[in-house]
């Protein structure tokens, strides 16, 4: 075989050698194609695997860790929550609407293939600068696409985040997370076992969509990708709705052994992964696969990424039941092969063998690379960059308004208003809260969920930044009264073959791992998206964290707006922050630099536990974490029905101290209010626990007013704060 062929299929010469070894012969073209796609970064995790192994994945709550289509975590009462996050970055760059839509479709399939009914979608998004027309086009398309799919299928999109930054110009990030609910007894898995059991393809017909999607997701975007554009698929949420209902019905009927959705690399990955997990083989006659187009080759059938399809292994003799269920929903279900004992993925066409590969060679035997790492030149330089020359650019009140109106901090209601966030009538805390909360019908419980990642922090210090993404997710959950349970992640990075990028990756993962360990939120699954570069420029490292938490009693849910005037306001954690990596510095000085404040995860864990205890005890009226924009912004965000008067004592004579106090950032801090009669109790509890709690002032009035050492330093009308926050996105995007 000519080297050109395997190289085109994405295999290196060494990898090809390994294929020959594993096969014990020269593979044919179809076989090479199958190896090419299964050994792509996207499917094999060949670069990231050694790093991901360091994640803590166990805990008493974890029922299913990484390795399946989605993780499963126990929530008591015989119920479990199933969740997973995935990227659809590259397709969305080419066709924002369809790219984002199929991203939602794909992640939902990962969840209902486990037997869970999806109850929510979350959508972390990253785009280039909002000022640019191309960004605007992408935002409009992506948001419409997520809504177009989620709204139609009837699953609420309840949270997410949106950031704008240079580094995503040309390479937006579209991550999607799905959360589902499940009764333990209905857990389904992606295994093919039981020799002689039939193998069925169900759902949509196979067309030439997205052939090479997986390999495509593993290369950088360039002018060339133009030519590979056939890699874009079109989603059909209507079909998926039917597929979802049929699959859930089927799983509950007990007629099946295993089920898996066809995602990246379609029939190829689903069949060999199911066989591999079941320690068995699969034999399929491709001429039996229902097709949408004529003249498709075995290669095209195997690699097609047509959406809304599943591979199902029913118990022998129950295939008719499967057909009946699917026909009732107006869908096709066709037997295409059977489970075998020999561990081979054997493909036939009209009865003739066209490919024969040991299934494990495609999965477990995929190469693993230990890539070199190198600390990037910028790291030490930016860390040590002095921030002394900084001055308050404007009166503090104006700074506050500018920050509130800056694209990253501005209200994202333009986005989430386009998402049905209520269907299912379970959404207790809607978008706009610190985390979304959904009720679990039939119980007192609720599920909190959030996605977070400040990529600027990760860029400046990947280890600390990675850990902070986990911290932020946890503090968001705690603020609504949910106990953090576990995470999923979507690790978006540049080209890992560059040692500097791989260093970012390794450091960030180490930070995430440590934070997960201390905060007791194991990793149950996730997704790695590498090669996020345009013309050689990498995105900021963006390991998005999706976290799920449990609200024991829905009556305890806390919101992030001041409930009424006359409440005492407290700050948990350090009063001041740092300008390093802050939104202030980026917005007013065009600078992203500095050393992030030291991170003490144990202390943060103690604070979060304390906060949760206060909430469970019913002592908290409202709570909100202090993140981008610092204390002043967080206070303004909490003001709605009423304002706040805050008075802070500041000892430092450092000339920037005020600016840092107001707009400096430091995670691990939470603002909360309590009724006056409970204030003393809260302070006593804080002292007892040994956490730092400071009384700042009380709610009331119609402004955000902050005094330092007795002198009023900042005052802004709530109405003005809200106007500035609300107007930014509509102005740019309508």
């Amino acid at each position: 075989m000519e080297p050109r062929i395997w190289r085109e299929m994405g295999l290196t010469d060494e990898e090809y050698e390994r294929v020959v070894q594993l096969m014990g012969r020269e593979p044919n073209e179809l076989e090479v194609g199958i190896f090419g796609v299964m050994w792509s970064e996207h499917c094999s995790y060949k670069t990231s695997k050694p790093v991901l192994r360091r994640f803590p994945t166990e805990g008493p709550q974890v029922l299913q860790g990484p390795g399946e289509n989605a993780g499963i975590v126990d929530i008591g009462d015989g119920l479990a929550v199933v969740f997973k996050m995935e990227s659809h970055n590259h397709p969305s760059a080419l066709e924002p609407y369809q790219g984002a839509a199929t991203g939602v479709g794909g992640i939902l399939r990962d969840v209902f293939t486990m037997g869970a009914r999806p109850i929510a979608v979350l959508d972390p998004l990253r785009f280039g600068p909002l000022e640019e027309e191309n960004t605007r086009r992408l935002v409009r398309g992506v948001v419409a696409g997520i809504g177009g799919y989620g709204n139609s299928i009837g699953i609420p999109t309840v949270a997410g985040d949106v950031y704008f930054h240079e580094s995503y110009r040309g390479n937006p990030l579209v991550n999607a997370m799905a959360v589902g609910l499940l009764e333990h007894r209905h857990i389904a898995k992606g295994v093919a076992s039981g020799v002689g059991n039939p193998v069925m393809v169900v759902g949509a017909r196979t067309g030439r969509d997205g052939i090479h999607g997986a390999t495509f997701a593993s290369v950088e975007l360039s002018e060339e990708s133009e030519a590979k554009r056939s890699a874009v698929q079109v989603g059909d949420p209507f079909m998926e709705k039917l597929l979802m209902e049929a699959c859930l019905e089927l799983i509950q009927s007990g007629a099946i052994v295993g089920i898996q959705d066809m995602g990246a690399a379609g029939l190829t990955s689903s069949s060999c992964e199911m066989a591999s997990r079941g320690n068995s083989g699969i034999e399929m006659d491709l001429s039996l696969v229902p097709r949408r187009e004529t003249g498709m080759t075995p290669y095209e059938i195997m690699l097609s990424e047509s959406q809304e399809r599943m591979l199902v292994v029913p118990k022998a003799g129950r295939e008719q039941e499967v057909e009946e269920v699917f026909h009732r929903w107006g869908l096709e279900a066709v037997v295409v092969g059977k489970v075998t004992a020999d561990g081979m993925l054997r493909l036939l066409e009209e009865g003739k063998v066209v490919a024969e590969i040991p299934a494990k060679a495609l999965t477990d035997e995929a190469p693993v690379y230990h890539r070199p790492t190198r600390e990037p030149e910028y790291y030490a330089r930016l860390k040590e960059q002095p921030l002394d020359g900084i001055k308050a650019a404007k009166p503090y009140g104006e700074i506050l308004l500018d920050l509130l109106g800056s694209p990253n901090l501005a209200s994202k209601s333009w986005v989430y208003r386009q998402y049905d966030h209520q269907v299912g009538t379970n959404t207790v805390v809607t978008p706009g809260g610190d985390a979304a909360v959904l009720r679990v019908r039939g119980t007192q419980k609720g599920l909190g969920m959030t996605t977070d990642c400040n990529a600027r922090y990760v860029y400046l210090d990947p280890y600390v930044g990675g850990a902070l993404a986990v911290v932020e997710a946890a503090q968001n959950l705690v603020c609504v009264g949910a106990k953090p349970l576990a995470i999923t992640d979507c690790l978006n990075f540049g080209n890992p073959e560059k040692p500097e990028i791989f260093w970012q990756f390794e450091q960030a993962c180490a930070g995430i791992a440590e934070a997960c360990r201390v905060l007791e939120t194991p990793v149950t699954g996730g997704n790695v998206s590498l090669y996020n570069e345009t013309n050689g420029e990498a995105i900021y490292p963006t390991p998005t964290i999706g976290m799920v938490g449990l609200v024991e009693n829905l009556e305890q849910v806390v919101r992030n707006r001041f409930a009424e005037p006359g409440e005492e306001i407290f700050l948990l954690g350090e009063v001041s922050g740092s300008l390093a990596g802050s939104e202030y510095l980026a917005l007013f000085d065009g600078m992203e630099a500095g050393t992030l404040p030291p991170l003490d995860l144990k202390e943060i864990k103690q604070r979060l536990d304390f906060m949760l205890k206060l909430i469970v005890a019913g002592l908290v009226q409202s709570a909100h974490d202090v993140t981008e924009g610092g204390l002043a912004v967080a206070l303004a965000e909490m003001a709605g029905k009423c304002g706040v008067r805050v008075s802070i004592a500041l000892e430092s004579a450092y000339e920037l101290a005020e600016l840092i106090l107001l707009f400096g950032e430091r995670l691990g801090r939470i603002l909360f209010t309590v009724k006056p009669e409970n204030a003393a109790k809260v302070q006593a509890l804080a002292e007892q626990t040994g956490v730092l709690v400071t009384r700042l002032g009380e709610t009331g009035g119609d402004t955000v007013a902050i005094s330092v050492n007795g002198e009023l330093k900042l005052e802004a009308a709530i109405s003005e704060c809200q106007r500035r926050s609300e107007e930014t996105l509509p102005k740019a995007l309508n």
Partner: protein
Amino acid sequence: MNIGIVRFPGSNCEVDVWEAWKVLGQVPKMLWHQETSVRGYDLIVLPGGFSYGDYLRTGAIARFSPIMEDVIRFAKEGGMVLGICNGFQILTECGLLPGALLRNRDLHFLCQPQYLRAERTDLAFTSLYQKGEVIQIPINHGEGNYAIDDAGLKELEENGQVVFRYVDASGEVNEAGNPNGSRHNIAGIVNREGNVLGMMPHPERVVEEIVGGTDGQRLFLSLVQAWERRMQYGA
């Protein structure tokens, strides 16, 4: 009370409507789109969602479902029919209600709380609201922009067929309170006979405080009350 909720392929609010009724003490039945009779029911609800993907035009394909033929008969014989969101769209497509629903004025799908003013309270659907009362019921649609020609609009208004109008927080009918560009801020209309109501907002989403409010309760309870009266005094 015998309530039937029609489930089309692609419907997605049918369970929410069912749960809402349950909260209010009724247990409706789900009707599959392929059924051919709705005899024996006191009320038929066409729920929200994306029937048949809402492909082509919202509600266009659902209207040809086997069950719709009998729903039309049922309505023409005076049976009570409530269409919510996609249900409203289906009712206009099959001609039980006049007009049509176009893409929202700014083309975006909108999911948000919405102030409405109750214009008619002498109907079986709305007797528990106060005339002119401002209530909050969320909208959730991409195509809720009510369109009708001038003559049709005049007729609607003259017959008092407008049941709910979009208003701002102070209860004013104006552009600012109109989320989607509907003519005369129309959010819901009834047929001349008063037995077929179509509305874009979702009352089933506001029957429990914990998920956003209770202003939708009285719509359902009005229907129960009307039915009880009918049972008591005969039709």
